[in-house]
């Protein structure tokens, strides 16, 4: 029951510095013009900006110190990713830090350390979570045989065109294992890029069938299942942070338009029919930010417990609602302009449709919460 769950919310010096620095960085490196330039590119991001992020050490933020990271945990990623969402910055950062989290949490010794080092140096990585379009389906059907040949197709693999390291949950002799596939082992025609509704994002269906890996590329231990489950919930939190940022930027756009556009002789922001839903955007955004920073406060490198799970579910359920509502009303409030591709509201409404599904939609997360609260 929620009475017993945590209610703490605090903010560290490190988070404050990252919030400040990343906001400035994103403002400079990812103007709306920059964002639009990437919409039709293969990778969806500017490699020079990515390299700068690598140089700033952002890939190592959540990697523990004993693995050559900064040891700030997921807590340090949240402000950063919120600002990336605000700037609609295209990068494979979320995919890559999640892959790192999986390596850390499933801890495969030397092999993980080598890959984490590559990630810190800027090698994009991704986890192939899905085999169909249902985030609620956690059953893995792709297999790896005793000769270590993979059989099966993964779908909706984020940043598949940029990734050099792919982590695949697979079934080996009835057990869940993780396979670490190198990009060079994949032929180009095994990757089928999706046409995504959000043109700042990239994903693909990938046929891994026939790829043979070394035994050193397999992680099999009793932490795999729990780690995979934990990283999915961390993914939900990071997408929620990104959504909160995008919602904030979209709200700014609305407020600006309501303060400049005149109709019937008045600024349209003076009409309560527009004013009150705009206040709803603000209060929903406030709820999102409270949830994501609450989750950031209590999450740690330890296996995820109930409190953190509750916090992440709430963060994603809320932020999905916040962004889908804000972007939808933003288009409407921009009138005829809002119906055009030139109007920036299209970026946010597209982001809203893409992100609501990532790591489960709002209903999925609320249903998970109901299970935690009512089925005991």
């Amino acid at each position, binding site marked *: *029951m*929620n*009475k017993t769950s945590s*209610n*703490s*919310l*605090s*903010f560290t010096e490190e*988070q*404050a510095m990252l*919030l*400040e620095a990343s906001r400035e960085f994103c403002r400079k490196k990812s103007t709306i013009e920059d964002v639009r330039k990437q919409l039709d590119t293969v990778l969806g991001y500017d490699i020079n900006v990515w390299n700068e992020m690598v140089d700033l050490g952002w890939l190592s933020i959540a990697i523990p110190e004993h693995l050559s990271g900064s040891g700030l945990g997921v807590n340090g990623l949240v402000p950063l990713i919120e600002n990336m969402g605000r700037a609609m910055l295209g990068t494979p950062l979320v995919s890559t830090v999640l892959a790192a989290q999986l390596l850390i949490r499933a801890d495969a010794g030397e092999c993980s350390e080598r890959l984490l080092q590559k990630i810190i140096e800027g090698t994009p990585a991704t986890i192939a979570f899905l085999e169909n379009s249902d985030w609620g389906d956690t059953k893995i059907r792709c297999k790896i045989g005793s000769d270590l040949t993979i059989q099966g197709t993964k779908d909706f693999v984020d940043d598949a065109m940029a990734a050099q390291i792919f982590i695949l949950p697979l079934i080996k002799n009835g057990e869940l294992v993780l396979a670490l596939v190198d990009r060079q082992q994949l032929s180009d025609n095994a990757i089928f890029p999706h046409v995504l509704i959000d043109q700042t994002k990239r994903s693909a269906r990938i046929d891994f069938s026939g790829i043979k890996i070394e035994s050193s590329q397999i992680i099999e231990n009793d932490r795999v299942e729990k780690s995979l489950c934990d990283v999915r919930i961390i993914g939900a939190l990071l997408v929620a942070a990104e959504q909160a940022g995008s919602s*904030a930027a979209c709200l700014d756009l609305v*407020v600006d338009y*309501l*303060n400049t556009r005149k109709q019937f002789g*008045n*600024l349209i*922001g*003076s009409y*309560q029919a527009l*004013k*009150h839903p*705009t*206040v709803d955007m*603000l*209060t929903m955004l*406030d*709820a999102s*930010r*409270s*949830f994501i*920073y*609450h989750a950031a406060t209590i999450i740690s490198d330890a296996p995820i417990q109930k409190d953190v799970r509750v916090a992440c579910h*709430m963060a994603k*359920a*809320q932020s999905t609602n916040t962004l889908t509502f804000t972007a939808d009303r933003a288009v409407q409030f921009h009138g005829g302009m809002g119906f055009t591709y030139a109007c920036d509201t299209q970026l946010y409404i597209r982001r809203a449709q893409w992100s609501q599904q990532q790591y489960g939609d709002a*209903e999925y997360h*609320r*249903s998970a*919460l*109901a299970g935690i*609260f*009512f089925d005991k």
Partner: protein
Amino acid sequence: MTNSKKELEEFRAEVSAWLGDNKPKEPGFLLPQSFMEVGTDQQLDFLREWQYKIWSAGYLGLAWPKEYGGGGVDPVFQTIADKEMRRLGVPICFNIIGLGWAGPLIKDIGTEAEKKKYLKGILTAEDIWCQGFSEPDNGSDLGNVQMRAVRDGDEYVINGTKIWTTMGNYAKYMILLARTNQTAERKYDGLSFFLAPMNVSGVEAKPIRKITGEYGFTETFFTDARIPADSIMGQEGQGWKIAMQTLQYERGAEAGHAGGLAFVRVQMDDLIGQLKSAYRNGKPLLDDPIVRDQLVSLIMEEKAISLGDKRTHIGPLTSDYPLSLPLSHKLRYTEYARRMRKLAVNLQGAAGALYVGDDSALEGGFWQKAYFQSFSATIGGGTSQVQANIVAEHVLGLPK
């Protein structure tokens, strides 16, 4: 003065034990959930006795001076006592206008005579206080108060009408905002503040029946009512300033409040606890996917509000719109509370149609009444629609 952790913990345990032993049994009639709901003599007598008992035990007015009936100790003790009252779900301390408004004001700026005359009676609940700020035509626009007070020798002659006077029919005294100067350049400068006796001729408190079917406040008519001239607080023309000062004590014992609960807090846990045995379509209610979703959404709203209260104090996380959380708090909280109680009625099946007075009503019709009563907060103190305008204009900077 610093208090050792051990000392505070001992005090907490002492309060907890006392409350455990003395928490009143269910009286057989619904108790008011807030000080605004005292509608019958039965309820009044019960709450009066309870407040006296708490004061006698030494858990009310702890931080007020000893010579006026207080405990003369650090406010932290009152804060602890209040927390324990909240935790153990004991009845409210109903004399809130005295404990949280008039009392702290008299304690801070009153004369020695005023302190002697009024403070102890507030704590013991012997003297009930009410507040006369709002008028029928001046609800949100308090600065425009029109009630007249004209000096005549040793008295002021009061004429006009106040409304939404909580416990106006029970109160012995009223903190009263009235106009002593009709021609002041600023409307605020014409106002004066009185500690007005209610038992004088020319004062009529007419109970208003609420949507709940109960009483709890009055429309209060003053017709050539004469009150002693020395019942004015401060000087003529200082009324607005003093009225604004009374509002700052709500924040708790540290701010001067005598303590005690002003209202019973109802949480989602309370609702869910009571729905455990309810059914829908022949199955446990809490197995219904739609109900589960509705409840989870409200749990999230409740949690977002309490997390927001914490985030308010974190500068870097409120820099976009620094006034957003404080200025939207009333809007968010009261609307959540209303929706939650509305759902509570909806989920009861046919029993949702029962009301207070029916023996089979869930919890004596608590939720039905609580839903209706929740409008007092979405309307009183500025309607939600006015609150949304305030947030739009003062937080987002949208045009008037």
